[in-house]
């Protein structure tokens, strides 16, 4: 076995320890991956049974009736994601740009701390914030509140990703731009940012995927509805919340729909992850 360089025969104890450790570590690795297979196989078997075209195009039926789909949740998730992106991506990128300047001014230091703290705020707490910030003043659940909650979750992820990518840009690129007599803002916006487009896209896509799967912050902000889109100031359905509601219903039809919706959601998230992986590899 590898990792035993010509151990003398009397060192059977060390040899044995080494082999035992190798075996145990391999078993631990299998234990880490195994749930992925259990979950994925189950999701596929249970979820695929309910796949049909109408599942994606129809509105949900009342509890207990067959047929119906989750079209409301899919459009809802797309709208919430758009709202979250509209807020989270520009603010996140700007914050990342500020952090990447790596100066030690008060603003930068505070911003760094705040971005650190924001990544560790539990997502349900962000929901509480959006509730107090928008649901209470507006007098009801709304797509706005859900979008703001998701944007707050997205922001630090995008900021971190942007900072990491900008730090990879070699200084001479910036210096070359400045040497041409370009002002700093033009160098940043027109040379550096376009140069790291692929990396930025990756970061933003991953943040989007993460946010699409969030349920907790939407429970008492966007809430849910059964009718599809009725305006941004109205409650709006989303795929994760729909899965939660369906899973809580006692009937078999709802459960079936929950599995199929979960399969669609996981499929979506995995696709994004694989695409970003390929994008990164091409670089």
């Amino acid at each position, binding site marked *: 076995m590898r990792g035993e*360089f010509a151990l003398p025969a009397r060192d059977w104890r060390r040899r044995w320890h080494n082999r035992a450790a190798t075996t145990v*570590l391999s078993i631990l690795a299998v234990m880490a991956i195994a749930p992925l297979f259990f979950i994925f196989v189950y999701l596929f078997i249970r979820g695929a049974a309910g796949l049909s075209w109408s599942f994606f195009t129809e509105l949900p039926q009342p509890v207990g009736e067959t047929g119906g789909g989750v079209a409301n949740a899919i459009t809802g998730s797309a709208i919430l994601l758009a709202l979250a992106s509209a807020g989270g991506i520009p603010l996140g990128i700007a914050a990342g740009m500020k952090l990447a300047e*790596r*100066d030690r001014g008060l*603003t930068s230091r505070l911003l760094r701390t705040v971005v650190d703290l924001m990544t*560790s705020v539990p997502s349900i*707490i962000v929901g*509480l914030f959006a509730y107090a910030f928008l649901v209470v003043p507006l007098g009801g659940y709304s797509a706005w509140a859900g979008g703001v909650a998701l944007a707050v979750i997205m922001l630090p992820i995008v900021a971190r990703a942007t900072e990491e990518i900008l730090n990879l840009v070699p200084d001479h690129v910036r210096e070359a731009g400045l040497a041409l007599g370009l002002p700093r803002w033009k160098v940043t916006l027109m040379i550096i940012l376009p140069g790291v487009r692929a990396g930025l896209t990756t970061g933003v896509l991953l943040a989007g*995927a993460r946010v699409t799967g969030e349920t907790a912050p939407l429970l008492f902000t966007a809430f849910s509805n059964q009718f599809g889109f009725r305006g941004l100031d109205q409650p709006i359905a989303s795929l994760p919340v729909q899965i939660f509601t369906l899973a809580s219903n006692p009937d078999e039809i709802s459960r079936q729909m929950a599995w199929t919706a979960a399969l669609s959601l996981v499929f979506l998230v995995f696709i994004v992850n694989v695409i970003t992986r390929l994008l990164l590899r091409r670089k």
Partner: protein
Amino acid sequence: MYLQEKHTGRGTPPPPGSGSSFADGGDEPVSPLSNTTSTLRSDSSRGDQIYRWVLRGISWSIIALFVGLVFLLVKMSWEAWSQYGFGFVFLNQWNPPLEEFGAAPFLVGTLITSLLAVLLAAPIGIGTALFLKEIAPTRIAAVLAFLVELLAAIPSVVYGLWGIFVLAPLMREDVQPFLANWFGPETLFAYGLGHLLTGFAYPIVLIGSQFGWSEVSLSILSENMQRFSHALMDGPPMGLGLLTASLVLSIMIIPTITALSREVLATVPDSIREAALGLGATRWEMMKLALLKTGRAGLVGAVLLGVGRAMGETMAVTMVIGNRNEIPTSFMNPAQTMASVLANEYGEASGLHLSSLAAVGLTLLMVSLIVNLLARGIIRYLEKQA
């Protein structure tokens, strides 16, 4: 990097030899010659000024956003704090119809589920990181690492769904009856544990009685310890409860711990590994000496970040923990965490109930911020040393 602090004065030339300060942000260094092209310069610096102010403005609005988040939570929970004081956190009562509130049942639920989850996940996560770095061939390691990352990408509501419909029945039919059989009340394990705990606790009580604690007789102490250990696995096997929630949580934080442990192990310089191997260590001895020992602080940080993630996790836990607002006495019991009580009750609450829930939320926020800051501090300290 921080040279620019020294020459923020507009128009002063940069100190000689600081050519690379072009790249460092801050004010644009202006050469004495630029007076001749004053129009061009003022144009560009005006653009830069706007750019800088925009970034600064956005930065401050993000800072304000976070301060606002904390402020709003404090404001919402004010009623509860003024009613109960800070003792609210340790009050063991939660009865919305009677308007009695306290966070203790949820604090205990969160602590037990997170600790149990991390006890399971830490060895698996760190072991997997070691396996990926030292044992698996590079190609296989890359694929496995990607699979672990995918596990982290699964939304928590899907874990919850799987937990309810796959894991919970399995726990109910097989695992919990087994546990009750071997570790439940009236088993050898329970008696043994009871005696063991009595043995540990009695000297403490004896010493305590010298310092003014109320005296406890051995028989009463033993009785309490026995009651505790017999209750550990007591209760009907329901499938939903503390144990199931902890299991789901541990699956969810394994990817976090694995990824962070890999980063920590990667910071250990190869020279240390090679030194160990060069001295004739086997691979396992090298891992112990070079990797685990050198990376100790970082691994603790990784595990702590896993704890932080587990404490804030909401949906999966809400779906499998069984939702009972009392301090659990058995691992079979349904319970409630700080996050799950918010998910369950916040939508329908009002008045003092709502305010108390916000207070639970603020407690959760503070606990997770502390755990995360601690973990990050440890990791950053280690990085500085490396």
